[in-house]
């Protein structure tokens, strides 16, 4: 069954036309006045004051042109309050003020949720879980508390394998300033550099040290 509201308005009747109330001589009323009189007899004075207010409101110079907040507007604001609060949660605003204690139940619940009693529990849990997840993932990123990039770098540098380490210490693999020497190609370096490299190779092979 649909929602239906009936509106009843007053109009001129046949008797208004027939008795000449409209088209008489001087002293006769306008059709609208006849209708207003008829309606006044049917309705309360409240309707007349509303009508007067509407007419005054049309006149912008009148003080009655200031429109008061109607009962309808107040109801609309009250009903929309729930939707506004929910949309704030969805945007993540007003829920978190910092990352500390976020991943704990008390951290999420205590983050300024004065409206908990209004918002459905599922929406809070879902939104909070999403934000908690993003914060958790960001901890593994650059400069985060769980950033493991440095650890990996250090391990790669420090552990190159036993075989490589033994090759280096025995002199089979050499770290020289000029790698062209190892390959037997024309070095193109100065005599001083050659002497330095030769000393290094000797010391590495004989004494097991770079120095």
């Amino acid at each position, binding site marked *: 069954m649909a929602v239906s509201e009936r509106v009843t308005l007053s109009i001129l009747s046949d008797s208004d036309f027939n008795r000449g109330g*409209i088209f008489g001589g001087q002293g006769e009323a306008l*059709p609208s006045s006849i*209708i207003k009189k008829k309606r006044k007899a049917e309705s309360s004075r409240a309707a007349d004051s509303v009508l007067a207010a509407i007419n005054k409101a049309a006149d912008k110079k009148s003080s009655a042109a200031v429109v008061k907040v109607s009962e309808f507007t107040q109801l609309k604001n009250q009903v929309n309050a729930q939707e506004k609060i929910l949309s704030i949660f969805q945007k993540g605003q007003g829920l978190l003020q910092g990352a500390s204690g976020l991943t704990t139940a008390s951290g999420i619940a205590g983050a300024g949720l004065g409206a908990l009693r209004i918002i459905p529990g599922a929406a809070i849990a879902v939104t909070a879980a999403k934000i908690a997840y993003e914060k958790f993932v960001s901890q593994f990123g650059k400069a985060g508390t769980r950033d493991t990039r440095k650890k990996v770098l250090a391990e790669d540098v420090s552990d190159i394998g036993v075989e490589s380490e033994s090759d280096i210490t025995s002199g089979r693999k050499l770290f020289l300033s000029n790698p062209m020497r190892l390959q037997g190609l024309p070095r193109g370096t100065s005599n001083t550099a050659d002497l330095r490299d030769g000393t290094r190779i000797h010391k590495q092979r004989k004494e097991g040290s770079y120095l």
Partner: protein
Amino acid sequence: MIVLSVIDPSKQAFVVFKTQVQYPRFVREEVKKIAEDVILKPLHSRMKSFGYSQKIIDGTTIENIIVNRTGSMSFDVVSDYDSESGFDVAKAREEGTDDHDLPKVPGRIYSWISGGFVRAFSRGHRVKGITATNVVQKTVQEKTTEAQARLNEATDRFIARSLKE
């Protein structure tokens, strides 16, 4: 004040008769325009601000315009929209509902967006009631007086126009 300056009584009688015959049709057409301007447009915008679905807004119309010769006329502001399962959504939004269970529908699953980004599914669950808005009732009550004032002005213009012809 409208004064018939025509002296000839037969012409006066003719003008009155012609106006009387044309009046109901004038009222019907004029009231349709006034109802749409004064009642329906504000009602649609209020429904939109309340977050009503466009289908409910499109289903809100002016119907049953009846003009009597006894000095009154009436029309209905009707808001009608039913869901696929036959649930009267327009009435639920207007009058509100209590907390209730969504029934299980064989072969169908309920689906909605929860929290703004997660799609949720269910075969039937408990939902909270909807707050009554009474937007149709309140708008009609508020705007009826303005509609009457507009009709009065239109009637004056119509009579004045009839006399000039």
